[in-house]
């Protein structure tokens, strides 16, 4: 048998027609980079969400029964329904133009105009913290499922510190936040320490600690000294005014927590990229063996990292109690820890990405409320949208196939020499 291989490639062509900046920009935009995939995942989720809206509405479906006779009826009804649903979602998340014009011509107030944005930021603030917690741990190679439990403990310690101590303003708030961070840090340090010492997998231990934290909270709010003496149901005393995160009041629920959240994002970004600890975290996350060989204490890094991640989640819980709830109930932490997982995933475990992802989730939640009351579409649709976005992000190949994205390499984003 004779086999001959001839591969021919032209030598590097001289750039006779140099590409314009815009051309390069467009080409890179349409290559499979993570920003494009994320944006397209959201688009896909919105499209599927629209289909679900149509399918779940009996009136519109009835029009599809005579689709072949008069297709315009069904299509118009579908379009109207989806359009109004999504426009309510947007209005509820970012603001209603009518409210703004009412403010300008004196029939409304500026508070009403800004209320939607305020709601978005209010929902987003705790998610930023829990998202950062998950993202930071993930960069160190740890999957912090325990953000929920750490947030719950943060709620407890911040809430108790908020109503138990009679401290002057500013100090009371700082002490309560500090307690929230410490509580979460402790709840994160346990699994980190166990992992470092015994190799116990953090996913298992943090899931168990989530239950522990939630049950502890349910028990605690009924204890005397914690439970509100004027109430018989499961609710704690209200935190002192001095310990509350300052807000505008009235319809504007947004509070100082969102400012702290942005500061925390900047802090985590600095920690990861510019600090010695962040270097250790990234090295241990990418290759623990090489890190160990270079003298980095891998076990120590795991324990420290989980404590810092726990502190962030604890601050998320503290923000929830001191900024919006003001009192402990068994469900005060809601789902902020688990949503933090999704936020970190959507933000690609990057600090600023996580911030934007949390804002998006906050906007969906705020807009969902208006969509439910105006268009009558269940709030659960928002959860479906969030889940769809995450599914598409988790399956980038699907998005790339649907939109026929080019591989990033072909677009010249990175050059990987062949192994020879």
């Amino acid at each position: 048998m004779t086999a001959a291989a001839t591969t021919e490639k032209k030598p590097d062509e001289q750039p006779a027609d140099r590409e314009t900046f815009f051309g390069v920009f467009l080409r890179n935009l349409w290559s499979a980079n993570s920003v494009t995939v994320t944006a397209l995942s959201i688009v896909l989720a919105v499209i599927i969400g629209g289909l679900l809206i149509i399918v779940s509405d009996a009136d519109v479906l009835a029009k599809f029964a005579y689709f072949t006779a008069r297709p315009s009826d069904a299509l118009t009804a579908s379009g109207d329904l989806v359009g109004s649903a999504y426009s309510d979602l947007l209005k509820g998340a970012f603001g209603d133009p009518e409210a703004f014009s009412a403010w300008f011509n004196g029939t409304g107030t500026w508070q009403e105009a800004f209320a939607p944005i305020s709601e978005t930021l209010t929902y987003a603030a705790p998610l930023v913290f829990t998202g950062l917690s998950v993202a930071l741990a993930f960069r160190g190679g740890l999957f912090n499922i325990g953000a929920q439990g750490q947030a719950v403990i943060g709620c407890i310690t911040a809430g108790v510190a908020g109503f138990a101590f009679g401290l002057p303003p500013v100090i009371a708030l700082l002490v309560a936040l500090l307690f929230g961070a410490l509580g979460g840090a402790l709840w994160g340090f346990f699994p980190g320490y166990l992992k470092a010492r015994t190799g116990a997998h953090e996913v298992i231990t943090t899931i168990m600690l989530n239950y522990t934290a939630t049950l502890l909270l349910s028990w605690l709010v009924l204890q005397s000294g914690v439970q509100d003496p004027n109430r018989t149901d499961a609710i704690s005393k209200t935190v002192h005014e001095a310990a509350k995160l300052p807000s505008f009041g009235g319809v504007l629920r947004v509070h100082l927590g969102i400012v702290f959240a942005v500061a925390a994002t900047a802090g985590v970004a600095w920690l990861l990229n510019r600090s010695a600890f962040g270097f250790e975290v990234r090295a241990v996350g990418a290759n623990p063996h090489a890190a160990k060989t270079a003298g980095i204490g891998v076990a120590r890094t795991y324990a420290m990292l989980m404590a810092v991640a726990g502190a962030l989640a604890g601050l998320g819980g503290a923000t929830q109690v001191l900024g919006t709830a003001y009192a402990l109930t068994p469900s005060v932490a809601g789902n902020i820890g688990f949503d933090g997982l999704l936020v970190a995933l959507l933000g690609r475990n990057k600090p600023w990405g996580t911030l934007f992802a949390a804002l998006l989730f906050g906007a969906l939640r705020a807009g969902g409320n208006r969509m439910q009351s105006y268009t009558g579409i269940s709030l659960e649709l928002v959860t479906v949208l969030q889940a769809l976005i995450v599914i598409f992000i988790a399956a980038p190949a699907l998005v790339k196939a649907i939109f026929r994205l080019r591989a990033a390499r072909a677009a010249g984003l990175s050059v990987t020499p062949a192994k020879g």
Partner: protein
Amino acid sequence: MANDHIDITVEPGEVHALLGENGAGKSTLMNQLYGLLQPDEGQIVVDDEPKVFRSPRDAIAAGIGMVHQHFMLVPVFTVAENIALGAEEVRGGPLGWLDRRRARRDVLETSKKFGLPVDPDALVEDLPVGAQQRVEIVKALTRDVDLLILDEPTAVLTPQETEELLAVMRSLTEMGKSIVFITHKLKEVKAIADRITVVRRGAIVGTASPDTSEEELAALMVGRAVSLEVDKAPAEPGRDVLKISGLVADDDRGVRAVDGVDLVVRAGEVLGIAGVQGNGQTELVEAVMGLREVRAGTIELDGESLGAMNTKQILRAGVGYIPEDRSHDGVVKEFSVAENLVLDMYDREPFGNAFRLNTAKVASSAKERIAQFDIRCQTPETPVGTLSGGNQQKVVVAREMSRPLRLFIASQPTRGVDVGSIEFIHGQIIHERDQGTAVLVVSSELDEVVGLADRVAVMYRGRVLAIVSPDTPREELGLLMAGITGGRNEEKK
């Protein structure tokens, strides 16, 4: 561009060696021939018939098989299952059950026909590397291929296994099969090849016959004259720097790996440890570096015990360390070249302190060291994982040699590294010795140990059998490595 207008022809029954440095484009070329990559231009002609391979399936159908550098086997499957994988015989329709008996019979037949003993019922994960490779070859042969591509087949083999492989290659060609043998090892090429094509930077730079000298082949490969001998002056040993006495350590499975080793490494000399891989060399070095628990015995650096120190303290005490498994322990592939260069010094001035990094300083120092150690990378920010093996190793060498050292430990310093980089790394090791550093070199390549060392310690089953001069005849060293002392040398340590 990995391949630039390459033409090669393989005749029936010949071993055609494709010789080139890491990153020269050898694997890329062969991946095109095997249908894993599509050429942008040009064509593949099999038996005078132009072919287009969309996938390995097409290539196999045309009679081309490939054994990859990293084996494509399922560790928990048996040999027969692995060989059947992808071409399973099924009884009772498309959803029927696997015909295991037939798979087993096919394996035995092929293995007998070509003289390649494999046990069809053994689990692949239990087999040594050489046997796994035989499984890969048998797998290709059961597909009835006429042309077999072997991608760096000897990189993972011990010297004995290499000999066996070369014998297998000879018998295959006698049966009329053609073999493309990809490698950068000159000795093997000379031993087996009928024709040699040398590739450099994606282009063919020459063809040679097997009687070309190694120096000429190396020069063709690298593009300049290369010294294959380590060039060094006689050592001037000084004080005892590293003193190991009665060291005992276990391997990962808890089996005794180092069993009472006494060694002394003096300033200004290279002590080489020779031995077949797996005789405790790895564990010995890891114990010295604080990466493995010391069960008994002492390790002293200039009289100071290393036993109580952690790895960071040992590194800071003036010990440089090149780990044997570069991609596992040496570099963080996702990190940039600059970050890898400070992997052990990131929290020390001038690169930073316990709190923050000085990224500007890290970057500027990286530029200096990239120039000094001739690391070929686009920018200091390039991820190390994208560099060739030789350049990754240079990053490790540059990192470990950039601080004042008392002891330098190099474990397999040139494994998977191309000829040009080997010369450079060997030069750096001798340079370090001449600065008065004590150097400990561990290598499974006897040539390397003998070339670098001033004294050679031979390890066998966790013990140092003898310490001999590097001028000791090869046969004697070979016997020592096999554990045969012949009743002398025992007292020389």
